[in-house]
């Protein structure tokens, strides 16, 4: 039986899809048979970040409607043969998601995969609701700023009360925070909320801190999840997060400002 992990946030543009793609690659690299599902029906993006946009034939909504089998719709990643992508439909809207339909697909994925990552759309409407409804675990992506934190609080509240686990009285959805776009030097200056601030407000432990870095954007644009860039801090930080999600104990990195070396101080950078 696989585990369902939702990547969600409430607020848009905080890095849900980037995170979903990187976590999926990370789990696959650790030998887990992984599927990543785009719940953003009508605004499909995950396939771009994963670099498989030219190979989408069938999508999530086709599977729900029975136009094709799940197997036909799953796109195998070119880098990891134990990693599959289920793309969202670009032509439909979120009303195409039905509880029965989503449940059927999720149950089937749970039977076939070790890890199923549900990439939630922004908001708290239908798409986001179904992305988190069946989850066992949640990675809530937060930027260190007040509006993102408040939206995450809202999403955590909805999850703790309206997920299937909550409705059926099972143990609650396991919650983790993933802090993205973190700029340690700005935190030090007091311009940005710190890891401790966010943890205190939300009352949930941080599973990873991804530093703000130009590599993240260029990785997205080239369809190569940033976790595969081993030279990038952001890539290594995602690697740490995956290891922690699998139960490893790793110290937090990239949360202190970088001290500039002698030459950098002399010649600027």
């Amino acid at each position, binding site marked *: 039986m696989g585990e369902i992990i939702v990547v969600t946030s409430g607020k848009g543009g905080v890095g849900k899809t980037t995170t979903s793609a990187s976590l999926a690659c990370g789990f696959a690299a650790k030998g887990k048979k992984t599927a990543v599902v785009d719940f953003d029906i009508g605004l499909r993006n995950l396939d771009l970040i994963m670099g498989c946009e030219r190979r989408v034939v069938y999508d999530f909504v086709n599977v729900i409607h029975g136009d094709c089998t799940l197997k036909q719709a799953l796109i195998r990643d070119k880098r990891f043969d134990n990693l599959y992508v289920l793309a969202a439909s670009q032509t439909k809207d979120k009303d195409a998601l039905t509880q029965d339909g989503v449940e059927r697909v999720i149950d089937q994925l749970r039977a076939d995969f070790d890890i199923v990552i549900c990439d939630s759309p922004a908001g708290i409407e239908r798409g986001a*609701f179904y992305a988190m409804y069946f989850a066992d675990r949640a990675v809530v992506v937060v930027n260190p700023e007040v509006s993102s934190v*408040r939206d995450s*609080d809202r999403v955590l*509240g*909805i999850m703790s*009360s309206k997920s299937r686990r909550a409705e059926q009285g099972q143990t609650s959805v396991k919650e983790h925070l993933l802090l993205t776009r973190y700029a340690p030097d700005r935190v030090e200056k007091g311009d940005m909320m710190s890891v401790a601030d966010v943890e205190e*407000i939300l*009352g949930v432990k941080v599973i990873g801190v991804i530093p703000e870095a130009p590599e993240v954007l260029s990785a997205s644009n080239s369809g190569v999840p940033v976790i595969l860039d081993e030279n990038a801090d952001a890539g290594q930080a995602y690697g740490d997060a995956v290891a922690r999600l699998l139960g490893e104990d790793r110290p937090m990195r990239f949360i202190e400002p970088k001290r500039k070396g002698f030459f950098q101080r002399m010649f600027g950078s």
Partner: protein
Amino acid sequence: MAANASGARAEPAFELRSGQFSLMLLSIRRLNANELQSALADHVAQAPALLQGAAVVLDLSALDALPNFARLGDLIARIQAAGLRCLALAESPGVESLAHSVGLPTLGVDRKRARRDAQKESPVAHAPAPEPAAVTAREPARSHAFRDPETAPLPLSSEPPRTSNPRPGPTEAAVSQGPLVLPGPIRSGQQIYARGRDLIITGPVSAGAEVAADGCVHVYGRLSGKALAGASGDLRARVYCLSFAAELVSIAGNFKVFEAASREIAGKAVEIFLDDGRLDIRPLAL
């Protein structure tokens, strides 16, 4: 009929399905036909849009003795004359044959519920009436309001949602049920209401969350949202929290908004109570 027959479609000429309707129950307390007719006519005249021609179910269960056939016929005629239409008799012992005699059906009533509704409404709805009239009209057995899964508040608690206007009357005397205890955190967007009792949150209350109780509100954590104690008007209700950062605190409708809490109370454990109609906030010496 003729039009239907000429249409001659494959569809059957009728469809039979169950429907649920909300009907008013007319409870007769005294069998004084004259008094009844004039009181009813007055009542209808007060709210003609709502009551003129309205269908009612006649409830005779409050009477000591059932009327005979003739008196019942007279009663129904008088109700009609007052502007209401009598549709059926409410089921109660001995009514079946009586209803048959006047050609009306009997309808089952959830009496427990009807009584509960009546009690709930009575202090507010009936207080302004100058004299207890010979009749009361009320709505029995309403179906549950539909709760949208996206917006339905109070998912954590088994309590019904807090209405936006807390009832003005005094608290229904119900202390015996004990406090409503919930683990925190209560998150942004969640609403908790402990009806007729105290509310205890063993954790923080986030900004944008609302916790309310007819009794006291205790927050064993940081209170960053809104807290409303004495929501039904109990002036003695108080709010307690371990770390004060509330957006709003209200006691029995006396509220204060905190754009920025003053230094003496911000982040402190405090007690909030009404002192002569004014909200008083005092740090607790812990």
